[in-house]
């Protein structure tokens, strides 16, 4: 039952002012000023909360990436450490050339870029190959004629 546990009288309802005052420190933590909270548009708090969540989300990704880099570095050095106690020389793995993609969109863009680079490399190889073949063919023709002229 609601109310004072001793007297049994119903407790006073919580006013809007009470709720505003109670929640104000939370919004100060999110970076909201006194004036924005009390005198600004009511909807501002919603955006501050969303920005705060987004910042936390980004910070979390940042922490994750630091951990991932450290983990990656450990894995790459591990063979060298093993080699120190074994035989033969082991080269450490290569450190990533760029940070890992943070979003799926970024990952997809990177994948497309990689595919494009692969295709360009393939085309260049193909062109070089066909140029070589053409050169060989011309030389063979020259030899067949036996005159050494072009």
């Amino acid at each position, binding site marked *: 039952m609601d109310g004072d546990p001793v007297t049994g009288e119903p407790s006073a309802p919580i006013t*809007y*002012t009470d709720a*505003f005052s109670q929640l104000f420190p939370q919004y100060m933590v999110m970076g909201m000023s006194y004036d924005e909270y009390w005198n600004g548009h*009511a*909807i501002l*708090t*919603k955006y501050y*909360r969303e920005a705060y969540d987004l910042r936390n989300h980004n910070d979390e990704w940042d922490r994750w990436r630091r951990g991932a880099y450290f983990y990656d570095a450990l894995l790459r050095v591990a063979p060298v450490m093993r080699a120190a106690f074994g035989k033969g020389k082991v080269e450490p793995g290569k450190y990533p050339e760029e940070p890992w993609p943070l979003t799926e969109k970024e990952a997809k863009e990177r994948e497309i870029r990689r595919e494009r680079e692969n295709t360009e490399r393939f085309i260049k190889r193909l062109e070089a190959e066909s140029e070589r073949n053409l050169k060989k063919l011309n030389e063979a023709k020259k030899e067949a004629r036996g005159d050494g002229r072009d």
Partner: protein
Amino acid sequence: MADIKKVNQINFDYNGKHYCLEYTRETVKQMEAMGFSLNDIGDKPATRIEQLWAGAFLANCRKTSQTIVKELFDKMNDKEALLKTLTEMYNNTLSYLLPDAEDDDEGNVEWTATL
């Protein structure tokens, strides 16, 4: 006559002056300090709706005389819709503080003032 809609505001022009009515947490606090409570609206609807209306002037049109406030109130034709809009605007000062109120447009009040 004016037909301006903006999130959580009632905007209109009257006699060459622009009026932008809204509630801030500060003005709601002031209204409660003056004895206003939204819970009483069922018991004293006529008084409370006028207080609710007058309170909406505190944020941006504080210097508007009580006579004009009353005059404008009398000119509003659909009092039921007006009460609904004002109540939502008033409630939004609290509901926007709570995460549950997110991800919908219910809190975005639209109002067409017809004078």
